[in-house]
């Protein structure tokens, strides 16, 4: 099953490699991993999307907690949460017809065109992973020149918080 795990850790050099190393050493899957400092610059917050049986997820949770740099963590999938991912897609937009079609599709998905060139548009789209997938499916495969995705970031709903 897919799980989305948030980890609050010391913003130390090498903290990311400890987590990445743990996943590779123990053979856990990583679907995506994002990390950046928080409003408190001494803290990093990481979001990991992984899959595994309940036993594997339990071990992942325990092993993450065991890392000396990890302060707190939470399996967001255990309760109500929100996930967002950012995607940038460069699409072919050479003819008037193509440009019109891309603009229309971007609007439907509430994406924004953030770069306009002679033959291409770059579209910015935010949402749950499934929405980004749906957008890519809606595009003509030949029209996609390049895509880049950040991987999911997640946060609990309402009073559900991960902080120290």
């Amino acid at each position, binding site marked *: 099953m897919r799980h989305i795990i948030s980890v609050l850790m010391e913003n130390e050099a090498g903290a990311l490699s400890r987590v990445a*190393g743990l996943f590779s050493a123990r053979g856990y899957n990583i679907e995506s991993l994002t990390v950046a400092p928080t409003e408190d610059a001494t803290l990093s917050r990481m979001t990991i999307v992984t899959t595994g049986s309940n036993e594997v997820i339990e071990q992942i949770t325990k092993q993450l*907690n065991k890392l000396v740099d990890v302060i707190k963590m939470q399996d967001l999938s255990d309760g109500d949460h929100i996930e967002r991912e950012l995607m940038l897609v460069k699409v072919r937009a050479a003819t008037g017809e193509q440009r019109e079609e891309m603009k229309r599709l971007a609007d439907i998905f509430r994406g924004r065109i953030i770069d306009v060139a002679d033959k291409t548009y770059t579209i910015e789209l935010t949402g749950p992973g499934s929405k980004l997938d749906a957008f890519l499916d809606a595009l003509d495969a030949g029209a996609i020149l390049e895509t880049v995705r950040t991987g999911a970031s997640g946060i609990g709903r309402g009073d559900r918080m991960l902080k*120290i």
Partner: protein
Amino acid sequence: MAELELTGAEIVIRCLHAEGVEYVFGYPGGAVLNIYDEIYKQKGFTHVLVRHEQAAVHAADAYSRSTGKVGVALVTSGPGATNAVTGIATAYMDSIPMVVITGQVPTAAIGQDAFQEVDTVGITRPCVKHNFLVKDVKDIAPTIKKAFYIAATGRPGPVVVDIPKDITQHSCTFEYPETISMRSYNPTSKGHAGQIKRAVQMLLEAKRPVIYTGGGAVLGNAAAPLAEMARDLGYPVTSTLMGLGGYKANDPLFLGMLGMHGTYEANMAMQHCDVLIAVGARFDDRVIGNPKHFAKEARRIIHIDIDPSSISKRVKVDVPIVGDVGQVLEEMNRLLKASSERPEQAALKAWWAQIELWRAQDCLKYDRSSAMIKPQYVVEKLYEITQGQAFVTSDVGQHQMWAAQYYKFDEPRRWINSGGLGTMGVGLPYAMGVQLAHPDAMVACITGEGSIQMNIQELSTCKEYKLPIKVILLNNGYLGMVRQWQEFFYEERYAESYVASLPDFAKLAEAYGHVGMRIEKPEDVEPALRRAFTEHKDQLVFMNFITDPRENVYPMIPAGKGLSEMILV
């Protein structure tokens, strides 16, 4: 008045003094020259100069295993650090508290492929509890404080502190923190009260109980409360390889070691019990074999461990208790004493009757009339002559199993071996660390002709520090455990397990300045051992016992099989 500034190198030394370090095992090199210059000037600890960095780490590890204190090793950058890695991984697998200080190239040279540069923090990351690269002289003291704290608390383990050379030259004022608190690291030591209650209830309801103890019972200093519980309830006890000595081997409640080469009675009891209490043990593959086979028999499991990730990793347990095993057992004993309930005696009696039947198999019997020296006999004689009082280190292989099976350890921290990583070559450096920590104790290193050659250069260190270790070489001319597997599972195709050319070990020992002996007949075993421990009490004696090359370790559970699928002699 301005406070006195110290260099980084001086600070390192002051920190080690503040931690009460007695021995630093190490080897100098370019990146640690500043630190060595300060070692030259100090008197607070003894530096032990080994002949290979791997041995420094093993010796520090054994110092820790035999004393419970944090072992300290110091090596240079690059090859110094890579040579130390096997030692670090060995300590990591067995949860041994250690601080390893590694030199690093100067900060400005990091990443430039400088001479003797290696990414020590990167290389050691998967085999340390934690590691640090110190980037500022001001960080040395707090980092070393943290390193000792992390190494010794919670589930112990090795911590590496990598210090670039320029940092040891810079100076700042020195203050060693008295205490340390880390928001990201707060190990649990007190067990959950509710779970402890449930565990006690479950123990009292048991009809076929087994107490299964591991290295955690030794590391957690739980021998006393463990003995109290077992005797109070009259329950059988078995130990893993790492747990030996945690419970008196000579006690009738003790079933011997369990696992791949465990006794018949221990493995059968383990497989057929209805309530199992695991104390600082982790159900690893060499202990329970195939978890699917293990799970076939229904039983309720209580698991006490300091490390939450050890619980329900290979086997699902019913009552997990995270905490210091000693403290948790004490709390359980308190509740047991306060309870008016007692275990059902008729059931317990029947269980013991069954266990005695299994025990009557006498699974550790061997041919005592052989014209060749049987390795088991050597270990038995060593036990008799040392009256069970020796510290015994071993290497890895058949001799290790025979040592574990035939030397009856009655006290914790006497049996020093590499259980988790199974590192050949640890025996001699382990004996060095133990002998330095216990100068008046008898220290025997039971080894094989394969393992001993993996760190034999340390015979030179033993001479320098006058370590009267007794090396018991069970020489069968084969990499015996490999040979045994080839005999059982590869139709006797002995690929590269026969060592055709061996040195004259007695002469080799003499060349290093020690006493060497070669023993070929069973009747010469006892006199040789006696001489070693009397006449040559203060010398290192290297005893080359020529043993039966075809002897196997029994019982044996083939890898991947279940506990009741033993091959018996």
